Each structure stands twice: as C-alpha cells, then as structure tokens.
C-alpha cells in the first residue's frame, strides 16, 4: 500500500514546482500554468485525505470538484485578461505590465 506521506510529498513537490513557475516566469501563460499546477497539487491532497481518513463520505473528493470548478473559471478569466493585456501592450510579459508602481 502507498503510505500517505508519499502522496503528500508528491503533492508538496508539485506545489513547489508550481510555485517556482509562478515566481520565476515572466510570461503570463506560464505563470497561469504554474497556478494550475499548484491547484492540482492541492487536489491531490484533498483526494488523498478523502481516501485515507474519510472513505465513507469522500468529502475531499467533492471539495476537489469545486476546486476544479473554480480553477476552470479562473483560467477562463485569466486568459481573457492576458488577451486584453496583449492588445493593450503588445506583450504577455508580466514585468512590462508594471504601471502600478511609483
């Protein structure tokens, strides 16, 4: 059987990779992908706990479904914003979208 630790460590690794992607990348779509990766890492946790701790109610799975819903909504909106940014600045580089500075 798979120890719960391993599942959690896999999730943590995926989350950290997503985090690195978000922090180190300047292309808007890549950043968005990083966020998706982080959300999936979180979903792994939910599902794992649903199986290991709460197999009868599987509430974690239900929660993961909602996370997916929110993530999808977010992707839709984010891509719309990226499109808008590109039209405005002719770039998808987030470092150039820095008009909210001093």
């Amino acid at each position, binding site marked *: *059987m*798979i120890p*719960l*630790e*391993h*599942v959690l*460590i*896999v999730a*943590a*690794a*995926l*989350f*950290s*990779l997503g*985090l*690195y*992607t978000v*922090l*180190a*990348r*300047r*292309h808007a*779509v*890549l950043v968005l*992908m*990083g966020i*998706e*990766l982080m959300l*999936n890492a979180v979903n*792994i946790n939910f*599902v*794992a706990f649903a*199986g*290991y701790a709460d*197999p009868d*109610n*599987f509430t974690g*799975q*239900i929660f993961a*479904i*909602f996370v*997916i*819903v*929110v*993530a*999808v*909504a*977010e*992707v*839709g*909106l984010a*891509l*719309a*914003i990226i*499109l*808008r940014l*590109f*039209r405005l600045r002719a770039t*998808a580089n*987030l470092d150039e979208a820095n008009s909210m500075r001093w």
Partner: protein
Amino acid sequence: MTGIDLAFYVLAGFSIAGGLGLAVTRSVVHGALFLILALMGVGGVFFTLLADFLALVQVLLYAGGVTILMLFAMMLTQVREQPEATNNPQRPWAALASLAFFGAVTATIVVTPWPRNLPEGAQHVEFVDIAGTLFTRWAVPFEIASLLLLVALIGAIIVAREATE
C-alpha cells in the same frame, strides 16, 4: 508492492517530471505540453487514490480543455521563445523560496504521524455516489459553483471583447 502501488509511483514520477519540465523549459508551448503530462499524471494519481470520477474529470477538463485553451491563448499572443522573455531576474530567489517551502512542508509531513495505509475495505467511489451526494448534501454549493462559472464566462467575454467604443 502491488500493481496499484507501482502505478502510483510511476504516475507520480510523470507528474513531477511534467512539473519540472514546466518549471525549466524555455518554450511556452513546451511548457503547455509538460503541463499536460503533469496533469495527466495527477489524473492517474487520483485513480490510484480511489477517485475514479475525479481522474476522469481531470483528463477531460484539464488535459482536454484547459490546456488547449492555453495553447489558443499562446497563439493569439504570438509568444517569442526567448529565455529572457520567459524567465525573470528573481529566478534564484524563486528557487530558494520554493525549495524552502518544499523543505518546510516535507519536514512537517515527515514528523507528523499519519495512517500508514488506506483503511480496510476502502472502495473506489462510484459515480452514482458522487452524483447522489452532490445533488443532495452539496446541492447549494453546487448551484453556487454553477453561478460562479456563469459569471466567469460572462466576465471573460466582456474582458476579452474588442473595445468598440
């Protein structure tokens, strides 16, 4: 080690490999492909963790929908594939922060006592059960989620629309 266990480690390896690829690749398009790999891996992991429905949704929605959407967006925004266009100067710090985060979380996971195994008699969750629970116990959140999707849809349309004024 059973077949399921093996499948978990392999699929988890795929996922992490996809994540690593996403993290280091210079090409946005390659990044999207690596993401698909990672998400498919996650879907497999869901299956090994008794979440059949979620595994299906994962494959359909992410690998099929979201990533395609992203590729569309990339095409629309004509990405130049250069490292300075995809990486920003704070990369070392980002690496440090991510490693620190990973270290902290892993340390916490290791020192916390967990149930070693899946409970006895744990079964794959049936689609019917999921549907039943969603539409009874979680009916209100479900409706709110559908409302959220509607709002996001309309918002995305409005934001992305050509300014015509």
